[in-house]
Structures are given as C-alpha cells and as structure tokens.
C-alpha cells in the first residue's frame, strides 16, 4: 500500500517533469541517432531530414565525417515521438569557392541518389518511439521500383 502510493507520486512527479519540458521547448521526448550508408559505405557529409507525418516540426541532422547523425529540432537535440518520413541529401563540396564572375559556386555533384531527396520517393519511413532510437539509414544506388528520373516527377 505504501509502495503503491509512492509509485503514484513518483509517476505524478515524472508526468510533471515531462509536461514542464514540453512547455519549455526543452528536450523532446525522443532522440534519433544512427549511421548513414550508401551501398554499405558510410556517407560522410550531407543532411538527414525527418519529416513528421503529423502536426509537428521538421527535424534535421548533419551527417558527420564518420557517417553518424543525431536529429535536432530547431536548436534542440531530439524530436517528437511519432511517424516520420526521412530524406537524405548529400553533395560533394563545390569544385570552386566561387562561380564565374565571382558569383555563387555551382552546387557540388550529388552523392545520394535523387529519390532520397523527396519523402514521396525515399522509401524511408520510421516510427520514432519515446526515448532513444537508433535508426540506421541504409541507402542503395539501386532505384526503387517505378522510379523514373524526371525533374518534374513530383506532380
């Protein structure tokens, strides 16, 4: 009986803490980390985006030089638990710092295949659970079925 009431208070306190952190925009209730590979080799640059399939904010991560990533929402590490579609975009650095006439450099060559750019074609969907999630993104240079390279494919 005594233990039971302690547990009740403990969960009340825990609930209060969770509520407090949500209200403060502090730590989100989940984290997502992992390694990004293309055909088994780590990708060592680029950006991972977690597009929420619910009313929520995009979570992003820069891929580090060992292929690892750690999702962030705005300024804070972490993200809301829920369903996400993941996209990955990585390019080589631009060949030169500036383009012609001092203009912007042309974008570097794409490292990741084009279908990973869009949530509709990436085929990467995940459920992020409360707590810590390890989500390794194993990309392949084999196109998904039905993929047609078209610059106006999205509509």
């Amino acid at each position, binding site marked *: 009986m005594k233990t039971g009431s302690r547990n009740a208070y403990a969960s009340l306190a825990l609930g209060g803490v969770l509520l407090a952190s949500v209200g403060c925009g502090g730590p989100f209730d989940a984290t997502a980390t992992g390694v990004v590979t293309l055909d088994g080799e780590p990708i060592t640059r680029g950006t991972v985006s977690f597009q929420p399939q619910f009313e929520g904010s995009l979570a992003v991560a820069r891929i580090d030089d060992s292929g690892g990533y750690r999702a962030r929402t705005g300024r804070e590490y972490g993200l809301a638990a829920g369903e996400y579609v993941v996209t990955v975009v990585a390019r080589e650095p631009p060949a030169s710092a500036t383009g012609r006439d001092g*203009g912007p450099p042309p974008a570097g060559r794409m490292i990741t295949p084009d279908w990973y750019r869009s949530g509709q074609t990436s085929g990467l969907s995940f459920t992020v659970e409360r707590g810590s999630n390890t989500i390794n993104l194993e990309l392949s240079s084999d196109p998904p079925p039905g993929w047609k390279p078209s610059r106006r494919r999205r509509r």
Partner: protein
Amino acid sequence: MATTPYALPGIALTLLAACAGCGLPGGEVGRVSGTVMIEGELAERGTITFHPARGGPAATGRVAGNGSFIVSVGQGNADKPGGATIPVGEYRVTVVVHAPSTATLGDGGPPVAGPRLTDGKYASVTTTDLSKTVVAGENVFAFDLVRATSEPEPARAETQETGTEALEAGDEPAEDVALGDAVDQPAADLIAEPATGQAASSTAASNPGDGDPPPSNEAASNAADADLEDDQ
C-alpha cells in the same frame, strides 16, 4: 521516509513553476527557432529576418554552423540567451546565406563577402515568398531554399522565359489529374515557377562547354525540386 511521497510532487511543482518563467508571458509572444537548408542541405551560415506584416521592428537571427537559428528583436532577452521571444502574428521572412569569404580588400583590408548561395528572391521583403505565422509558445520553422544560380544577378528576362514556362506548365495537367490534385495547380505553377525557370536556364547558360555538364543539369532539377518541396 514518510516525507518522500510529498517531496516528489513538490519537485514537480517547482519545475512547473520554474517553467512559467520561460519567456511566454500572457501568450502574446512566441519563441522562434528553426533550420535553414539549401536544396536539402543544412546551411552553414547566414542571416534570417522576420518582418512583421503589421509593421514594427524586424526580428533577426544568425544561422549557426549547424544550420539552426533563433530570432530576436535587437538583443532579445539579455537575461536568458536563447529565450528571446517576438510578438505573435504574420511575418514575411528573408534569408541570405553567403559562402565563406575567400579574399580581403587590399592589405589587411576587410574581407570581401563570399558569393550569395541563396536565390536573390529571398533577400528582399518585397520578393521573398517565405511567410510564417508565429503563434504563442514554441515555433520551429524549417526553410528549404533554392540555390542561387551561377550568374551574378541576371536581369529577369520574363518574356524570354514565358515560352518555356508555358510549355512546362502545359505538361502539368495530365499528371495533376492522375494525382487527384486541385485543378488550379497549373496556375499556381505559373506564379511560382519563373524563378525556377530562370535558375535552370541561367545555370545552363553559364555552364556551356565547361566540360562539366552534370552540375548544370542537377542545378536545374534541384531548383525544380526545391520549389516543389515548398509547396508541401
């Protein structure tokens, strides 16, 4: 031991009370943070500005190395860095991301700004197509921007583009119907697309005979994609 059950909710209440001081008084203001990307990749530097539609001081923020930003009016909340809030309401948003500087002016002169990496339309409040509604509490916005073209700042050759745009727009209806989209999509396309068409054509124009055609094709398709992503 008997006090323990009371200590726990006490802690919770204290935390809740502390949270009330999070800089959200009266629900009139919101904290605005987020990320800036260029065609799917996080920006590494830059400046973002929220211009209130009803007038008043603009809120600005620096884009950090990890692509994130938080905006404030002036110095924001000096007591609590990162706790700055701005009034709720409609905002137009401008963003400029420059490449790192690679040169200085003369001997020890100031560094020359690197070339702008984001499309010029985002630089001015009159041309930007970015707008956001700031609500009370937390606002986390992600912006995915179209890359600037290699041309320094081509005058917008609208008439020259019209032919191309009309053709491209003409491709749309069949796909739209197939996807069950609204019938007015092509019209929206005509409004939204000129910058993309411009990006595609001027990139292509600036790269002929470079011996490096992939970047130009890619820039074109990327520009198109990024525009589409904005519509999601």
